[in-house]
């Protein structure tokens, strides 16, 4: 094989010219560049992270001591509704779509997404949906009745959402916001799939594509078949509330269980929509900081695809206590147990990648180690809850809350933070501070374990979720106080992260185009990448194109 010639393209960034600020704002508002849209997604999601985190803190203050009257029951209902809805639809999905928007075209050697204007549309409609949800705080019962946010829970079980139990417009704001966010998600997913299938650079066969685009492909596939049912269910709910239809109206023969089915057909695959990108970050970061190629690439792809399929047949494990009958319960217990097989394959492959590697404990890798451990524990409590008899005992208790926060925070947010530290140099051209990063890691790790390890216990002791206060002397008080203190540690860690991001943008040390000595295509372009990404579209001949370039004596392409 001949050695690969290298193109030395000089990057003339337009950003160097100083422009009036209005032009810059106009440019961001009208941009169709995938990197700018990705960044806008991330910034908007971070704003909602702070808002929803603040709501969580308020709830933990309320629950920290027994018989507390810090907030009223109505306000508490609004807080957990808004916290859940915001975290899933306006923090989790947008931030992961933002990362995907930024990284997928760069990693597959494309200049932009397949449909740049659809991309901008998807972003703005999602952003509008978020504003609409929070507008309900002032507009839910008319402009003059402030403080009437949705209070039906993020699951919005029927018949709680009917006009009788939920008068005013707060539920309509919730429905419309979730509907519009669904439209945006489907648009982005469509864009990601099309980009991956149609825009890969020369030589990047599907079997050579980095694992991050692969997982985004699977994740987008789940979005089509999981978010669409939610969209359909929102249409039905709106018809019920506005035109007097009877889909979920039990007085006219409608079924409340049907809403549960429709909601969880979305709700459970949604977990995989959120966790697959987290896996994707782990797949890119762990090999680089272990200085080894990813172990078992084909197995990782196969496991991800099978997770995608199995995830569609597990939704009713959220409904064991609704009375589906033994046959239904058995099927969903089995399906839920089966999904742990591909997930186990993934964990073992990550461990095999680390095994015998020259491990570098930089901040991104520390977050990945945290991710691995916490994801394992989350999976174990997941298997516990998948057993129907155990689930009957602990359904709607704080054990469940602790379990899914272990997945959402312990796995997804940790992986996401690792990804922030890993790709920040690419996005801004500057490194993030390692010292502040370690502060962030330890504060967040301690806070996380204080909160969610201890949260399992009141659940086992019988504390139900969604209660706004409780009597003293049931053995829940100290535990809830510890949980509350942990939440404050997590908030402190997040503040350190935000400070670090702002500080490093101005004062961080120059990163250069490849600070981590990595091997995927995004590290071949300058940091930050120019608006066209690649001066000349690249050609790849292996899974690690930059490795081949840096090690012409031992390229990967010889082994494929």
């Amino acid at each position, binding site marked *: 094989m001949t050695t690969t010639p290298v193109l030395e393209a000089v990057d003339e960034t337009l*950003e*160097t010219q100083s422009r009036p600020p209005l032009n810059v704002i106009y440019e961001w508002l009208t941009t169709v560049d995938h990197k700018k849209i990705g960044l806008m997604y991330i910034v908007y999601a971070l704003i909602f992270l702070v808002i929803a985190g603040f709501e969580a803190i308020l709830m933990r203050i309320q629950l920290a001591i027994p018989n507390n009257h810090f907030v009223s029951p109505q306000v508490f209902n609004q807080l957990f509704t808004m916290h859940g809805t915001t975290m899933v639809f306006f923090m989790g999905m947008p931030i992961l779509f933002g990362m995907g928007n930024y990284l997928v075209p760069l990693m597959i050697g494309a200049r932009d997404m397949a449909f740049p204007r659809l991309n901008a549309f998807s972003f703005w409609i999602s952003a509008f949906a978020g504003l609409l949800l929070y507008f309900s705080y002032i507009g839910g019962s008319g402009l003059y009745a402030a403080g009437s946010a949705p209070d039906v829970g993020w699951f919005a079980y029927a018949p709680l959402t009917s006009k009788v139990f939920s008068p005013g417009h707060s539920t309509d704001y919730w429905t419309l916001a979730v509907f519009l966010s669904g439209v945006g998600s489907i648009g982005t997913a469509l864009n990601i799939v099309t980009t991956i299938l149609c825009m890969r650079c020369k030589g990047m066969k599907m079997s050579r594509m980095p694992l991050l685009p692969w997982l985004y492909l699977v994740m987008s596939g789940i979005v089509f078949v*999981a978010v669409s049912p939610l969209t359909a269910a929102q249409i039905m709910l709106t018809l019920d509330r506005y035109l007097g239809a009877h889909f979920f109206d039990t007085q006219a023969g409608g079924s409340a269980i*049907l809403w549960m089915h429709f909601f969880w057909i979305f709700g459970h695959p949604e977990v995989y929509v959120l966790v697959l990108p987290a896996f994707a970050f782990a797949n890119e970061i762990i090999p680089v900081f272990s200085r080894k190629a990813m172990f078992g690439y084909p197995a990782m792809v196969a496991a991800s695809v099978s997770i995608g399929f199995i995830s569609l047949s597990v939704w009713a494990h959220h409904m064991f206590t609704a009375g589906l009958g033994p046959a239904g319960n058995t099927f969903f217990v089995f399906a839920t147990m089966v999904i742990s097989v591909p997930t186990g394959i993934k964990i073992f492959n990550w461990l095999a990648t680390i095994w015998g590697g020259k491990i570098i404990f930089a901040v991104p890798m520390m977050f990945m180690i945290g991710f691995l451990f916490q994801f394992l524990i989350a999976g174990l409590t997941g298997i516990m809850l998948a057993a129907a008899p155990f689930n009957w005992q602990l359904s709607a208790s704080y054990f469940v809350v602790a379990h899914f926060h272990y997945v959402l925070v312990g796995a997804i947010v940790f992986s996401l933070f690792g990804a922030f530290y890993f790709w920040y140099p690419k996005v801004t051209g500057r490194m993030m501070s390692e010292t502040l990063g370690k502060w962030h890691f330890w504060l967040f790790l301690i806070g996380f374990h204080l909160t969610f390890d201890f949260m399992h216990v009141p659940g086992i002791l019988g504390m139900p979720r969604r209660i706004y206060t409780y009597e003293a002397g049931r053995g829940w008080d100290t535990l809830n106080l510890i949980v509350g203190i942990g939440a404050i540690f997590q908030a402190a860690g997040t503040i350190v992260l935000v400070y670090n991001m702002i500080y490093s943008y101005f004062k961080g040390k120059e990163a250069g185009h490849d600070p981590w000595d990595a091997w995927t295509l995004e590290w071949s372009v300058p940091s930050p990448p120019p608006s066209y990404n690649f001066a*000349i579209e690249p*050609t790849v001949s292996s899974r690690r194109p930059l490795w081949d370039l840096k090690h012409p004596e031992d390229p990967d392409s010889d082994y494929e």
Partner: protein
Amino acid sequence: MMTTVTTASRIPIDGPIETPWKLPYRGTVGMACLIIAESAIFIIFVVAYIYYIGKSLSGPTPAQVLELPIFGTICLLSSSIFVHFAVSNLRKDNLRGCTLNLAATVLLGTIFLATTAREWYHLIHDEGLTIKTNLFGTTYYSLVGLHATHVVVGLIMLSLTLGLSLTGHVKEEHSEKLEVLSLYWHFVDAVWVVVFLVVYVLGR
């Protein structure tokens, strides 16, 4: 904006190339994705329809009021053939044939929509069945209405294309794009087959 440092980008430009390097057309892939997502929406409405068959607490029942919309169905299904001919004519650079077939598609689609409108008028005014009346009304109007909405969207896009075609803006090189539109129209037709079977055959 901060000043960016000029860096050399090091991109391999000449690896061994698998020739020919051909990827699918993004319009087709995008439309396929949209169709998957839309199918999921329709499945939910169909499931709700099937689940609520015979569960209405009051009349009228489907057997009392529904008639088989044979004429409309024939019109809609045959329009799919015409849009297919429009694409193949355009591919062969037969612009006139393309325009005529597009016109036939739009005409047949509009006739279908008119039969649906007539049916709804009959149901609302003569039978007193609205979305509020009972579960049958709820599921019937939402499922058939969702399909009709898709017909309207398709007709708008087809009419725009027909307008462009009449003014001579549609050329052979657009055949791939017209094919994407025809995929959507075929999808709308396929959904009607399901709706027809569920609502008018199974539901009665």
